[in-house]
């Protein structure tokens, strides 16, 4: 069931939000033990919230564009009183006393949050295997990963537990799992969605965005959560853009550049999918061309300095003093060490050490400082590309969903899963992953459309064209 269809039925009184919520809870009940999608499922409050939506409809009021739609929230989004662990032992049992702006806005649009979805610990990973609460399995093939770090949110939608879920994307953490689970995923322009209440991984890269079965549902979700928020100083001015209205706008006359660096090294099936999507866009009236942006090859190394550097500072607060896990020690330093040693997993520790090193006196210029320069160079390279193209096209991930355990002991192989998605986080631009084609195992693949800052409307119109063309030969 699609989110906008559910909302239409609830708004018209055709169907009750309570029955929708019950259905979602029973779908979660049926498969969560096998797939490990939700780390926390809300109880009575889900039905109370749904009943409140129904009461609004009964009173003649419109609960909003997501009326009665059950949503999954990645476990790094705060909701008052709801456990929020970020997939880490160090936050086990922590219940935030406040609600993230994006979640508040979902509630204001009539949505019904049903629980918190599993994730790589502090969003550091590309397979949802670094979670302290066990890996999430891909509902389309439970021997495989759902991608990550928003793997729980992707699996929740792919398993039809909820029609939409929110994730966060720091280096591809929405788009890559969307691709691996056959979903639409949007990484909005940095600042379009407030980060207030999103537990930070790398503050200058993190953005919240939706995962959904359809472009329309993703557009409606993003429209609901976007717009200026005075509680986030990096929030862009202005209200949420109209996105649902752009769905049917098409791509006639649009210039689309196929980026060699966003295809090179991908599986042949992935390359074929990008070519197939290009054909669909061409058939719909877009002008296709091949472009090369060599600077994008620098993205991965710059990202693995900038993101860990920010993370090393953002994660300092998990020290056992005020909240979360505390492991006793003889003095304050031993308590810090014991708490963080027990509370963080291997990948988080690796990145904290990387980031601490990159910022250290004597190394700053060679590592963090250099990475910032690379970031600037990439932004300039993107700007040159967008002078001749309205949109860029490439792969989302180099492969289809891979087997559980395949890359977990090889960090470099895992990091390469995000090689095509990372540049957009570094530039602060927008990108969307749309399902297109299938891999050798028959699992879905995703293609990625990229656009400059605040090009979400244009991206959604193009994604809708690709989505509609999925059935054409070769796709």
């Amino acid at each position, binding site marked *: 069931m699609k989110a906008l269809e559910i909302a239409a039925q609830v708004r018209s009184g055709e169907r009750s939000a309570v029955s929708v919520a019950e259905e979602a809870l029973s779908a979660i009940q049926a498969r969560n033990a096998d797939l490990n999608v939700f780390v926390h499922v809300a109880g009575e409050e889900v039905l109370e919230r749904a009943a409140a939506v129904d009461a609004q409809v009964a009173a003649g009021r419109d609960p909003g564009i997501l009326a009665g739609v059950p949503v999954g929230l990645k476990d790094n989004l705060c909701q008052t009183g709801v456990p929020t662990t970020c997939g880490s032992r160090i936050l086990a049992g922590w219940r*935030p006393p406040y609600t993230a702006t994006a979640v508040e806005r979902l509630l204001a649009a009539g949505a019904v949050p049903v629980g918190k979805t599993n994730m790589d610990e502090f969003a550091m990973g590309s397979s949802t295997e670094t979670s302290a609460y066990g890996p999430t399995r891909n509902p389309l093939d439970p021997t495989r990963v759902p991608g990550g770090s928003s793997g729980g949110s992707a699996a929740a939608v792919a398993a039809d537990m909820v029609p939409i879920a929110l994730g966060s994307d720091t280096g591809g953490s929405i788009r890559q799992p969307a691709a691996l689970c056959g979903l639409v995923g949007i990484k909005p322009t940095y600042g379009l969605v407030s980060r*207030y209440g999103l*537990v*930070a991984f790398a503050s200058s890269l993190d953005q919240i965005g939706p995962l959904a079965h359809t472009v329309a549902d993703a557009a409606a979700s993003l429209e609901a959560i976007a717009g200026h928020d005075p*509680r986030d*100083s990096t929030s862009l001015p202005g209200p949420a853009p109209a996105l649902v209205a752009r769905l049917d706008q098409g791509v006639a006359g649009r210039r689309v550049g196929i980026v060699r660096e966003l295809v090179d090294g991908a599986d042949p099936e992935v390359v074929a999918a990008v070519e197939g999507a290009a054909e669909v866009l061409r058939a719909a009236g877009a002008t296709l061309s091949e472009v090369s942006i060599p600077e994008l090859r620098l993205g991965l190394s710059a990202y693995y300095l900038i993101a860990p550097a920010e993370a*090393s*500072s953002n994660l*300092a607060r998990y020290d056992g003093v005020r909240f979360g896990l505390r492991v006793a020690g003889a003095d304050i330093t031993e308590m810090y060490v014991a708490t963080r040693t027990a509370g963080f997993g291997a990948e988080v520790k690796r990145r904290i050490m990387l980031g601490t090193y990159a910022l250290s006196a004597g190394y700053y210029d060679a590592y963090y400082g250099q990475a910032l320069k690379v970031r600037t160079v990439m932004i300039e390279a993107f700007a040159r590309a967008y002078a001749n193209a309205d949109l860029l096209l490439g792969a989302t991930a180099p492969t289809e969903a891979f087997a559980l355990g395949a890359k977990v002991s090889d960090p470099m192989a895992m990091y390469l899963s995000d090689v095509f998605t990372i540049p957009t986080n570094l530039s602060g631009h927008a990108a969307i992953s749309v399902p297109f084609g299938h891999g050798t195992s028959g699992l879905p693949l995703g293609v990625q459309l990229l656009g400059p800052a605040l090009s979400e409307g244009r991206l959604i119109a193009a994604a809708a064209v690709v989505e509609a063309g999925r059935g054409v030969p070769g796709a």
Partner: protein
Amino acid sequence: MVIGLEVHTELLTASKMFCGCANAFGAEPNTQVCPVCLGLPGSLPVLNARAVELAVAIGIALHCRVGSSTFHRKNYFYPDMPKDFQISQYDRPINEGGHLDLSDGSRVGIVRAHLEEDTGKSTHLGGTGRVHDADRSLVDYNRAGVPLVEIVSEPDIRSPEQARLYAAELRAVLIATGASDGRMEEGSMRVDANVSVRRIGAPLGTRCEIKNLNSLRSLQRAVAYEAERQVDVILAGGKVRQETRHWDEGSGETSTMRVKEEAEDYRYFREPDLTDLVPDLAMIERVRDGLGPMPADRRAALAGLARGADVPGDVLDAVVGAGLDAFVAAAVARDVEAGLALSRAANELAGPDGPGQVLPDAFAEVLAREAARTLSATQVKAVLAELVRGGGDVAEIVERRGFAPMSAGDLSGTVSQAVAEHPDEWARYREGEDKLAQFFVGVVMKATRGRANGQQVLAELESRR
């Protein structure tokens, strides 16, 4: 001796630097906190615009360049710092390069005056009272996130006395800008001193930083002690170690707090949760227009009233410090000598009760009567004390307390009576024993219960001699 001072001042904003919590001293522990100032996961800072205005006011008052600035994170672990990093300013502070003119005529350079957030307050129970050997530590986060400006002086200060004058002048400037209440005892202004010694003309020596200086007196004593300690170390053939030292007010000594074997690595990087702070020129002009005259200007204006007469610096400081400029000006406008007006204001109105209920016009009226010799010094002090306590009409007070001058006839009669009652003394006085004049003044005073004007009594005695 070479001294540089780092002064932290809390800003008088209604709310904290990055959240809406109240910025107020003395509340129950941990009652003025929220997700942002507790550094809870997912919270984000939003800059307090009033804190920026007050920082700009300080910058203007210290003659700094006010410009675009950037916030950085200063990373280190400490339990009273909720995020385990402090949001501060590093290579692009809001105010750079200025100076402060002291009341002794010297000028001290200002390196920078930048914005940052305060930490919480730790109390360590057991052990030596430091965190590492405490049995328990209690943390109050009410102060966490309170806006601070850190003012760093050039190493231009050369004596403990000048260090005290600098801190006193800076305190007066901060109060005059409205940025701070300057209450050192409540920690709203805190001074750290960097002290080194060298032979005259030699390169700078190794410096030690002294923390915990919470009064002007402590500052002066600690700097004097520390310089002497360093000289002793060098004369004994030793070397001064670069370290942070703690001032103990009770023992009057500094002691090692921590040794800086190598510079601490705070891993500064730009705070990604805040955008650059670009000054709004209209705001800067508004702040500049709103600033009243600074203490140095006011001292100069008051000295100008004295028209070249020498006025002691501490009298000017007291008048400026207590904000009594208008009182002095009102008295001078009534042709009272500025020196008298300044000293009466400094001595009678600058006490702990302040000018109280007395108004400038009433002060001027009292001093005009003193100048006209219709009130004695003792009477002036009594009338001013009553005005400070409850205000009122000067003429009424003078009348009620019997300070109104006696008529010439009454005075003459009383003197005649005194002479008649003490013929021997009168004879000796007339024969040239001058000191007996005071004896007769005393007798007249006693008879009139102090109403007589001593000067007039003397004149009367002289005329009869």
